[in-house]
């Protein structure tokens, strides 16, 4: 019986509309893993480092893999890649670079800095669910079916969270630094996280 933890996916994307598309894409692909959405490289670094508000690994677990837009405000994606390589605890986490930049220099740089894969965002006319549907069959995403991608086990405690992330409703003040939960298109079967949940 293999270990199948519901690991977290970290999405670092500053464009809200793109992030939205991605989340819908995941939902359509029946991805049940929690997705943490951060909007800039500095937050992503803080998250991976586990500093500041992200120090609570129970609430903010290390992701099993990262979707990274290269064009970010503040710290750039490539810089984050560079930094990530130097950190023993996170260097192993696979990164899929997501960018609209088709420049080969950038691409090569990303690969050399340890990106596992490089995806080019579709142009405006292709902004349909078709691509993200394609995405769902990549085998790179952890679906509720047995996955074909096995992600590395991270050494620190990755207490996986089932269900939603802390949102504004729990009394935490809404700042730009709070990770935004991905909204899910489909209602998923939840797992028991309190007393007496009846399921079928």
């Amino acid at each position, binding site marked *: 019986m*293999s*270990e199948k933890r519901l690991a977290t996916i970290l999405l670092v994307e500053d464009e809200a509309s793109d992030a939205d598309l991605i989340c819908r894409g995941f939902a359509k692909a029946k991805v049940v893993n929690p997705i943490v959405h951060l909007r800039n490289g500095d937050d992503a670094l803080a998250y991976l480092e586990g500093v500041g508000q992200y120090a609570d690994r129970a609430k903010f677990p290390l992701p099993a893999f990262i979707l990274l837009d290269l064009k970010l405000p503040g710290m*750039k994606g*490539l*810089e984050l890649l*560079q930094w990530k390589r130097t950190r023993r605890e996170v*260097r*192993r*986490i*696979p990164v899929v670079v997501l960018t609209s930049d*088709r*420049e*080969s*220099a*950038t*691409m*090569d*740089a990303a*690969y*050399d*800095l*340890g990106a*596992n*894969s*490089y*995806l*080019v965002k579709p142009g405006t006319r292709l902004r349909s669910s078709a691509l993200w549907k*394609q*995405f769902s*069959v*990549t*085998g*790179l995403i952890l679906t509720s079916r*047995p996955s*074909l*991608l*096995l*992600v*590395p*086990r991270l050494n620190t405690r990755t207490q996986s969270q089932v269900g939603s992330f802390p949102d504004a409703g729990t009394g935490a003040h809404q700042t730009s630094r709070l990770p935004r939960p991905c909204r899910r298109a489909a209602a998923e079967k939840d797992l028991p996280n309190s007393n007496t949940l009846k399921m079928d």
Partner: protein
Amino acid sequence: MSEAPVLLVEDDPADVRLIQRAFGKLDKNVPMIRLTNGDDAVAYLSGLAPYDNRGAYPIPSVVLLDIKLPRRSGFEVLEWVRRQQSALKRLPIVILSSSRHSVDINRAFDLGANSYLAKPESISQLDELASQFQAYWLGLNEPPDLHGEPWTGRPPGIHHV
């Protein structure tokens, strides 16, 4: 899609046959070159005889690499590729192994594998793997430049780190 072949490095003939069958069933043919041990893999990628004819033996677009291989293990091949000073170091390598041990998975990613796939139990799952592999690694994924110089220096577009 890339015209360069997929390099399959796998020693078990039964596995090879089943994998090739699965890839053979795909709509679009995937050219595949098969090697049976780690030394051959390194020789192929180095362009050493008998693989010095790049016409017959082109640089692959992606490598499907088993771990347990005779002579040189998959990990050693992976290490060798990532150590290269040429653009070859960016070669996408996907581990395909029967091992689901986290020790192996961790090591693979630590050594710079792009992805890790576990050999499925059934051939229907194998068929799906082939299909997904083609869609992603030969389709969606933007391949790096394997013929130019390796990128060194500061990330482009960054003035100050």
